[in-house]
């Protein structure tokens, strides 16, 4: 899976490049985002393209978060569709992640923390 990464002021913004993140591709996503997480402690996932996520997709994101927080970093999410947001709320994952409307908001949040 080719995951576009953009660096904005010390923050890596990864665009999740699929419509659906589920059992069929969440393993691949985890594998391919792995090197980014190794190098970057401050990461934003832009979920603007994502229309559906199942429990393995959420599990993959949770695993990324845990990986980053274990070494003092963080993962923030942005640009969620209404449907994806609803699923996060349904299973209380919205309380684990910081979620922002836009990628600028998410990056800014990192920068304010840093400041």
């Amino acid at each position, binding site marked *: 899976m080719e995951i576009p990464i953009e660096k904005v002021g010390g923050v890596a913004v990864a665009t999740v490049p699929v419509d*659906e993140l*589920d*059992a*069929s*591709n969440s393993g691949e996503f985890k594998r391919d985002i792995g090197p980014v997480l190794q190098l970057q402690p401050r990461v934003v996932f832009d979920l603007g393209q994502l229309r559906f996520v199942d*429990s393995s997709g959420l599990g993959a994101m949770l695993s990324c978060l845990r990986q980053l927080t274990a070494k003092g970093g963080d993962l923030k999410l942005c640009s969620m569709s209404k*449907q994806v947001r*609803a699923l996060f*709320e349904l*299973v209380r994952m919205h309380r684990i992640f910081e979620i922002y409307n836009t990628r600028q908001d998410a990056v800014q949040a990192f920068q304010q923390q840093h400041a």
Partner: protein
Amino acid sequence: MKEAQEFQESIERHARYSLGNPWSDLSARDRFAAVAFAVRDRLIDLHLATEQRYRKADSKRIYYLSIEFLIGRSLGCHLHNLGIRETCRQALDNLGADLEEIAEMEPDAALGNGGLGRLAACFLDSLATLGMPGCGYGINYEYGLFKQEIDDGYQREKPDNWLARSSPWQIPRPEEACLVPVYGRVERTVDRNGAYNPMWMDWKILIGTPYDMLIPGYGGQTVNFLRLYSARSSQEFDMGIFNDGDYFKAVEQKMTSETISKVLYPSDAMVAGQELRLVQEYFLVACTLRDIVRRFEQNHTSYEEFSAKIAIQMNDTHPALMVAELMRMLLDEKNLEWEQAWNITRETLAFTNHTLLPEALEKWPVSLLERVLPRHLEIIQEINRRFLEQVSALQPKDEDRLGRMSLIEESDPRQVRMANLAIVGSHSINGVAEIHTQLIKTSLVPDFYNLWPGRFNNKTNGITQRRWLLEANPALAELIRNAIGDGWITDLCQLRGLEKFASDPGFQSRFAEAKRRNKDRLTGMIRETARVNCDPASLFDVHVKRIHAYKRQLLKVLHIIYEYLSLIEDGRQPLAPRTYVFAGKAAPGYWMAKQIIKLIHNVGRVINHDSRAADWLKVAFIPDYRVSVAQRIIPAADLSEQISTAGTEASGTGNMKFALNGALTIGTLDGANIEIREQVGAENIFVFGLTADQAQAMHRERLYRPRESYDRDQRVRRVVDVFRSNLFSPTEPDLFAWIHRTLLDENDTFLHLADLAAYLDAQDTVARAFGSAGWTRAAILNVARMGKFSSDRAIREYARDIWHMEASLEAPPDESHNGARMDEVSLRAG
């Protein structure tokens, strides 16, 4: 004329562009669909106007949740309610078609088993007629209740794939589909602020796609909807499994998700432990709540307003998971504190109980809930912990009471009591007839009543006169219209105006003539479906409803056998020739009920072929009982059999339908029979047998002695002993020997022999009265005094006492309403 022309054009347009053929080339079934589409166009316009009206007024909404909606056919009632029946008839005349024949092509939407589901359908009609923003929420079963076929007297079940050709009434709303997680586990973590955060992990997802059926009220001012959800898989296939090469497993998984809305469970089936049923119930609740929240959040931001704007009525315990789901949503998604969430939940929810039979109260194993709905079980356990603390504080050291009231039954396996959950989570708990409500308070859940007496109330069931008189019985409806006008269509109490005609010979004669026309029609149906020739002049003695021991079809058969033996052995001719009509389905796994169907057929076979009985007795079992068949049978009945053991039938609504159509009731003091007697007068109903108190005492003090009844009364002995012979099972010896044992068993829960002698006496009284002017007078008075039993009255009471609704929202008269009036005028003139 112009309206008929426009309607005709609309039908032809749909024939061509919705069905792809000119009208002349359509099959009969497609002709029905073309007409239905033309009607649906009108419904949609009126529905959009109705929704706009509700939104503008920011009306409180009522959500009626039911696992069943027994709708039956819609075309006839929609035409009446929209006031376009004559318009449609004229349009079809122009097209060379007959409205009645077209209407016969509509398959019944059999999305229910019996009373509970039919009540839900009647309530939707009343909500719309009263202009209330009330909608139904249910499941779009692909297979409705099974089709019943009879093979050598045995019931055979065939699938009823009513959606095979899709229903023209349904409007798919895929854009409003919702996601429903199930299964998985709870991971107990903390959130970013260090607070406890139970996360629901490893779930599977179902997608609920809504299909709307529009429900017009009479007059066409209000068109509400019934929203039915179909389950589908989140993906066409699980590509992960597919890519691993296991194509069949991928397909199987997809099919498993779609199974959720595949089939309606027959009642009395042993559903406890059946995982699919539990998932169905949650699927209904979860989809409905997503939709409620979506609508609520269009106009509101604060959940403090939730219960002021929303009322959710749970029709029996099947939607009781709503208590946990609403709590979950408020706690987990909306971040409310427990106390606030609990207050909102209780103020929003209300629960209708429908049964007194303890075995019919739903329970789910804790282990199953933990697997299917882990987060919900956690919430239920917390509700229980807090609730039992409250009870303990009020009644310290009463461990027995705590055990009875707990939401969890400490049995093996431990089970969640859904009725207790529904009661604890609701601000209102209602029974469906006065005696039923009384028994809920004193026998079923007295501990809860003692704790919260103010929450318990009665709402006697009702039926919609638009279907059960105006549509089902045009002959009687026309007679009534000519006598007192048509105000009764929306105010059933106006039937009181018929009282003054009860002794009028001219009216009596016309009333009897209307009944005779209905009996002629039913005679044809009996001939075609049951292969029995009967005399329409005979007394039509009718027992139609689900086949169940407590409804005592067996008691009816004992009476028939008594009459038959008296005739052939003693030469005692009945006082009136009778046709005994049965219909009803037995749950596929309910052996005894299926045996009763076989018994009815075997008794019928012997009697119908005995030339000595030919002029006196006929027995007919009409197969595949459903709403459209009921609409044919009920108007033709002379005698309505409502003979359940007192204290077992919650209310019954068949009893009301028969009386409204001028049948006299023979019944026990059970369910709504008691209130029917109060209304029609004791002299206009045949009541017999034990009271509920007497039956209860007989059980409690073990006083039932069937052997004494048998020894004391020769008639009882004679009938019971038949089952030691093979008179009714000559080719299958001892087939019915179990009935002999059951009838003489002191543990016969339904006390057949305690009531048999009184029943036979009451039937003699019936026979003496039949055919007299007194009978017709009593039948007219029954019709005249049925006002109380309209579902309009029931809904008004729910609105006033439970939903705390404001006055209904009347739309200003518009053209369609004027059209309705014109149609009714032209009908009268005709």
